[in-house]
Structure formats: structure tokens, C-alpha cells
């Protein structure tokens, strides 16, 4: 295949899709599948046949448009109408009214315009709109044009310069400048070089990377091929959680189709550039998502992080220079190449450019997957996009950054979301999880829950994380049982700072965050538990109370 062939496919596919007046996209992501999305697909196909509108209406499976709480979801184009909680019965009605008569069925529509109003979808540009199982859909949506541009018009150095100019930073959580990272690997003389795409998303309540892989796998693959071209790698690995079967299948199919079109493999698009991608399935450890843990796991060893330096850029997989990027970072690459780094640098804030995907969960009215420009405030995310607190309850805290993020109180809601502001407040960008907590939750219990997760997931290599975290969890448990002492608060703080500063890898360095931030912002709750044996949220001591009544 030549670049012209890809352009021809794009033309033909666009033409083919242009025959249809309407396109019904049925979300078949992990959120909607359990609610019968596949049955719905059949129901729509039958309905379209029954009403005889096959020639003007295309029914297709698609990825997630983001509104996961109201699934199964159907996106009807043109116009971007989203139908929520669709059933086969509703499907017939929708076809009858919307397609045949041209009148949208108002009562079934997702009426939350605010959910999309403040969003900016770059990474999720195709999510919900294309069929992830068809490479032609991606190509028709402008896919692989960036790769063609790189291979035919740009040198590897120009590609890296464009990424550097965009100011893109690693979306895996730490926010390291992507261009700089690529440069480190590119200037290494040692060969072969490897690139790794990190899709080991293991945090509770986080599903951004998963949704991306299920909705638009080719955006990841294209970004990865470009990164390999830029640094001079010939072999790549996508490391994906085995617990994401749909994402694995989607990626496997996408890789097969990309290979068939010579977008990966030998002599890609007759440019002389060779690059292969292999899927590697995770072995069920959270720590395997850590930069050096992922390397150990791909090599077939136990996933334990190792101290740096040497950094993976100089000594990664099998001691060779290795570029590791989060899949969200990679999905940002094609639009940057097409529109230029300067265009991207204008989005977001000067220091944190672009957008970030967040999994908005917890006690909000509109949970789901969102993508917002950097610098947006937490208040806008929770109260505008999220639609406020569920059942009109009072906001209490928001946990930003996954299980090792920080719990921020109401006074911090004006905080702009960028790497530096979050770190300063005691939270992290992390995996992009936003868990909203209302006034029914006990903050000691919340800290315990996330610490317990990290205790389970600690690899056990270094003492602070293995033993220190365990002791923090035990002390929290003691306080929740009403057996805490006032000294425990100081001890918790001391242990928290110690684990944060002395641990080997990012897991231990951030795991005390929930404890430290709840101590910082909700200290009175700890004091109430210890000195008054009272839980302000009425959550702890319940078992004890009920036991006493029984006696």
C-alpha cells in the first residue's frame, strides 16, 4: 500500500457514508454491553428494515460517547442526538419518529446539554462516532493522515520538535514533557529501541484509557507508530490489562486490520520504515502500570519497580532504550502533527497545554467519561459538567487522581486542574479519576478504603510502602473502631510523610495522599472519632451500636 491508497480509501469511505442521511451509533463499550447493547444493535437493524429506510440510515456499533450512567446509549447523527436508556421497543419508536418522520423523540433524549458544553474532545474526538472494529471508519474520519504526513514530509527530528512545541505532557499522571522524553530515546545510539504503550489502568473508578481503547483503538496505534518513527524504534508493545477483555479484542482486531493495510509491519506505506506492535496482557497487578514495573512484566518477570537512574530511555526493555507513553498521550499525537504544535499549545494553560480525560464518578448527577481543557476548575467539572451532587445532598470532598490522589474540600473547588496546582494542594493528576464524595461519607473511612487498596497493590520491595502503608491502614482501622489515641494523628502524619518521601516508586510516594489530605482538610473528623468516639457522618461505630441494642 502507498499513502495514496490510504487517501483513496478515505475518499471512498466518506462517499459511501455520504449515501446515508442518518447514522445510528450504538455504544457497545463495557458500560453499555451488560445492558444489552448487542440486542439493541439487532433491534435497530430490524426496525430500519421494517420501516424500509435501510438506504438512508446506517446502523453501526460504536464506542462510548461518555454518558455511561444512562446506558445503553445511542448517538444519532447528524445533530449529535443522544438517546439514553434505549430498549428494543424504544428503538422502533426512535426509527419511526426520528428517521422516518424526522422528529426526534424528545422524552428519550439525554437532556443534559451542560455535560458536553464545557468539554473539549481531542483524544475522544472519534469516541462514539466511529465503529472501532473498522479501520475504514477511522481513516474516513481523518485517521492515519498524520502518519502519512510524518512519513512523507517530516524527519524524525521535526516530529519531535512539533511535539515539544505543543507542550504535551505525559498523561499517565506525572506530567513529564513528552517531547523531551522522545528526545532522550531518539538520541540514544544503542539499538534496537522499543516503544511501549501503557494501558494498565488499574485504579478503582477509572475507565478513561479503557474507553479510549474500546472506542478508538487506531488513535492509540497511530500515535504509537509516529512515536516509533520519531525515536527510531522497530518494535512496540501495547501493555493492556487482561481484565479489559473488550479492549483487548478491539485492539487485537485493530492491529490485524492495520497490518493488513501495511500501516504496521515491514516497509510501512513504502517509506522504508519498519515497525511491529505486539499486545501484552497484564498479570493482574496495579504496580505493573508503573514505568519500570511494566518493563519487568513485559520481560516476563514479576512486576516490581526498580530505582532510576538508569531511566528506561537509556536502559529499558532488555537493557535497550525504551520509550514508555500512556495511551492517552499517544492519542494526542495525531492531531498535534496535523494541526501543528502551536495550535495545541493554545489549548489549556501555558504550562499545561491540551486536554485531559477524567473519569467522573461518585455522588454526582452526571457521571461518565469527560475530556476538558487543562485549567478548568474543579467546581466547573463537578457542578456544571457533573450536574451537582446526587439527590441534592451537600458536597463534602472530591478525590482527585485515583486511589493515591488527594481528598480536597469545598474551599479548594476553585482550584484549576493542572499538574502543579493539584500537587500543591496535596492531590495528583494521576490516572484522571475524580470521585465526588457527599456528606454521607466518613473521611477516615474514605482514607482507609484507598489506603487499603494501595496496601493490597504494594509490590513489597521497599520497606516504607510494604510496612509503612500497612501500619497507616491499621491505625486508621483502629480509629474507626473507636480505639484510637490522640497520638495516632501525629503518628499518621509522620508515617505518611515518611512513606511519601522514602518510597522507591510512584505508588508508595503517592499512596499516603488520601490520609495526608484528609488529615490536612478534615482533621476535626479524626478528632471526633478519637476523643468523642463519634463519627460525624454516622458511618463508623454502626456495628457496635447495633450490637449494643441487641444486648
Amino acid at each position: 500500500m502507498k499513502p495514496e491508497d490510504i487517501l483513496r480509501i478515505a475518499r471512498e469511505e466518506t462517499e459511501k457514508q455520504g449515501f446515508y442521511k442518518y447514522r445510528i451509533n450504538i455504544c457497545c463499550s463495557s458500560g453499555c454491553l451488560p445492558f444489552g447493547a448487542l440486542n439493541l444493535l439487532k433491534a435497530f437493524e430490524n426496525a430500519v428494515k421494517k420501516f424500509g429506510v435501510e438506504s438512508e440510515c446506517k446502523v453501526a456499533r460504536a464506542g462510548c460517547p461518555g454518558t455511561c450512567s444512562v446506558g445503553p446509549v445511542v448517538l444519532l447523527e447528524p445533530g449529535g442526538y443522544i438517546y439514553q436508556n434505549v430498549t428494543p421497543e424504544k428503538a422502533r419508536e426512535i426509527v419511526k419518529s426520528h428517521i422516518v418522520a424526522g422528529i426526534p423523540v424528545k422524552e428519550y433524549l439525554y437532556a443534559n446539554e451542560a455535560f458536553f458544553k464545557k468539554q473539549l474532545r481531542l483524544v475522544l474526538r472519534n469516541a462514539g462516532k466511529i465503529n472501532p472494529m473498522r479501520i475504514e471508519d477511522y481513516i474516513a474520519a481523518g485517521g492515519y493522515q498524520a502518519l502519512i504526513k510524518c512519513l512523507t514530509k517530516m524527519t524524525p527530528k521535526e516530529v519531535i520538535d512539533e511535539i515539544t512545541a505543543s507542550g504535551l505532557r505525559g498523561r499517565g499522571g506525572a506530567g513529564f514533557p513528552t517531547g523531551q522524553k522522545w528526545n532522550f530515546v531518539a538520541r540514544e545510539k544503542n539499538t534496537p529501541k522499543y516503544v511501549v504503550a501503557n494501558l494498565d489502568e488499574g485504579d478503582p473508578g477509572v475507565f478513561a484509557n479503557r474507553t479510549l481503547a474500546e472506542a478508538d483503538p487506531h488513535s492509540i496505534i497511530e500515535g504509537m507508530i509516529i512515536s516509533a518513527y520519531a525515536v527510531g524504534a522497530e518494535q512496540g508493545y501495547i501493555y493492556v490489562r487482561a481484565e479489559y477483555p473488550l479492549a483487548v479484542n478491539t485492539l487485537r482486531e485493530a492491529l490485524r486490520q492495520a497490518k493488513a493495510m501495511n500501516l504496521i509491519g515491514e516497509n510501512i506505506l513504502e517509506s522504508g520504515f519498519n515497525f511491529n506492535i505486539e499486545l501484552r496482557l497484564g498479570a493482574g497487578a496495579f504496580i505493573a502500570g508503573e514505568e519500570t514495573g511494566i518493563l519487568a512484566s513485559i520481560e516476563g518477570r514479576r512486576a516490581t519497580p526498580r530505582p532510576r537512574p538508569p531511566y528506561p530511555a537509556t536502559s529499558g526493555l532488555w537493557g535497550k532504550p525504551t520509550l514508555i507513553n500512556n495511551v492517552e498521550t499517544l492519542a494526542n499525537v495525531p492531531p498535534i502533527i496535523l494541526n501543528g504544535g502551536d495550535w495545541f499549545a493554545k489549548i489549556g494553560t501555558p504550562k499545561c497545554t491540551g486536554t485531559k480525560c477524567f473519569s467522573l464518578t461518585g455522588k454526582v448527577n452526571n457521571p461518565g467519561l469527560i475530556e476538558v481543557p487543562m485549567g478548568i476548575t474543579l467546581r466547573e467539572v463537578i457542578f456544571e459538567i457533573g450536574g451537582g451532587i446526587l439527590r441534592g445532598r451537600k458536597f463534602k470532598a472530591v478525590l482527585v487522581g485515583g486511589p493515591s490522589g488527594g481528598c480536597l474540600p469545598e474551599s479548594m473547588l476553585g482550584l484549576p486542574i493542572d499538574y502543579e496546582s493539584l500537587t500543591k494542594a496535596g492531590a495528583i493528576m494521576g490516572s484522571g479519576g475524580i470521585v465526588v464524595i457527599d456528606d454521607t461519607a466518613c473521611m477516615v473511612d474514605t482514607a482507609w478504603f484507598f489506603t487499603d487498596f494501595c496496601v493490597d497493590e504494594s509490590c513489597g520491595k521497599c520497606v516504607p510502602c510494604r510496612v509503612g502503608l500497612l501500619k497507616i491502614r491499621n491505625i486508621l482501622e483502629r480509629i474507626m473502631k473507636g480505639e484510637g489515641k490522640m497520638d495516632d494523628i501525629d503518628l499518621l502524619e509522620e508515617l505518611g510523610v515518611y512513606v511519601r518521601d522514602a518510597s522507591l516508586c510512584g505508588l508508595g510516594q503517592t499512596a499516603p495522599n488520601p490520609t495526608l489530605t484528609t488529615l490536612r482538610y478534615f482533621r476535626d473528623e479524626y478528632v471526633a472519632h478519637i476523643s468523642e468516639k463519634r463519627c460525624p457522618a454516622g458511618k463508623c461505630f454502626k456495628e457496635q451500636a447495633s450490637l449494643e441494642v441487641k444486648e
Partner: protein
Amino acid sequence: MSVSSVVKIKIDGVEVTAYEGDTILSAAKRASIYIPTLCYLDGLSSYGGCRLCIVEVKGSPKLFPSCTTPVSNGMEIITNSERLRKFRKLTLGLILSEKPHICSICVANGHCELQDLAKEFGVDHLRVEREWTAHKIDLTHDFLVIDHNRCILCARCIRACDEIEGVHVLDMKMRGKDSQVIVDMDEDWASSRSCTSCRKCARVCPVGAIYVRDKPFSEIKDKEMAKFILSRRGL
């Protein structure tokens, strides 16, 4: 050794000449500056797990394990600040609280690196609750014993078995607090056909977790062994 370029660094205010490829620890050792270590052993690869050898480097809020951090020109290192002393004491206390370490019934009593360090840092009581769960003891081998109640998971035995003896009989299973050193695929030591019974694991164990039965403990320990073998190999 090839001629490597000289690197000027400062350790605790003293100017020290180091060489490219040196770690902070090796440079400090050459200059006779003491940094406490536990999982580190000359001749084995560095592990970076015990966090006792952490030091401060001027200009960075982070702490660096001196056994793995390479020196660079102009580096100013502090090996002994109040924060570091506090952290090291905490680390030792946490290690001691993790398993039922009871010195009076331990074969290593008096020859134990953990005991020595605890004495040195004045760990006279534990501030965190102790763990009293009983762990397995493997007594099946003719003379080698592994007592998991005393293991501090420093992985010295695993590294010696793999890097010096070259048989990789020992490894780690599970993760986090459940981590445990295993023989082969978690079998009884007696049934291991890959173990050469070389005793190197017992020689490098800093505590009394792996030892040779019925031998005076002072005779088993040989911390220079790994270094010696490596020097013979011309490495």
C-alpha cells in the same frame, strides 16, 4: 579497570574524588564516609529496597538511595541529617514490627545486621503495633533452614543464588505484605533438584532467616564472599 573520568563531589561538606560510574555509596566508601546499609552487599547487584542508605542531594527535595544513584559532577550530598536519622529509625522500627523478631531465640543474636543497626539508631521500643502472625519454617533440607519469621525480604539470598551461584533456586512469591522467599516453584527445600546446597544464601543473609543447622552462627556468615568471587572473575 578502564580509566574513567574523575567526578568532583561533596559528601557532608567534604570534597571527595569519585569516578564516573560510581554510586554515591561506592564513592562514600572509598572516602571512608559511613552510610548505613542493609539490603546492599558488595558484589551483588543493587536492590534499593531497604531505604536505609537514602541520602539528601542539595537542590532536590527528593531522597536518593545511595546504593543505586550514580554520582555526577558538583553533586553535594548529605548523609546524616535529622530527617534522615528519623527516617532510618522509622525504617528499622517498621522492619522489626513486620515479623515476630525475638532476638533471644534467634540464631543470629549477636551477629545480626538488623540488631546492630537497631542498636546504632537507638530503636529501644516500637511505636507501631507488632505483628505476631506465625510464618512457615522450612526444615526439610539436610542442613539449610529458612525461617520466614525472621526474613526481612532484602532479597540478598535471591541475588546471591542467581548472580553468584547462577542457579536461581530462590525467588519471591506474592506481593506486598504477603511477599515470601520461595525455593523453586514454592516447594520444600528438600525436594529442590536445582539447589546445589552451596550455602551462599546463608552466608549473605543479614539476619537469622537462612542458616546452616548445628553450626556456630559466626562461622556461617561471610559478607565478603560475594565480593571475593566477583574479584576472581575479574569484574
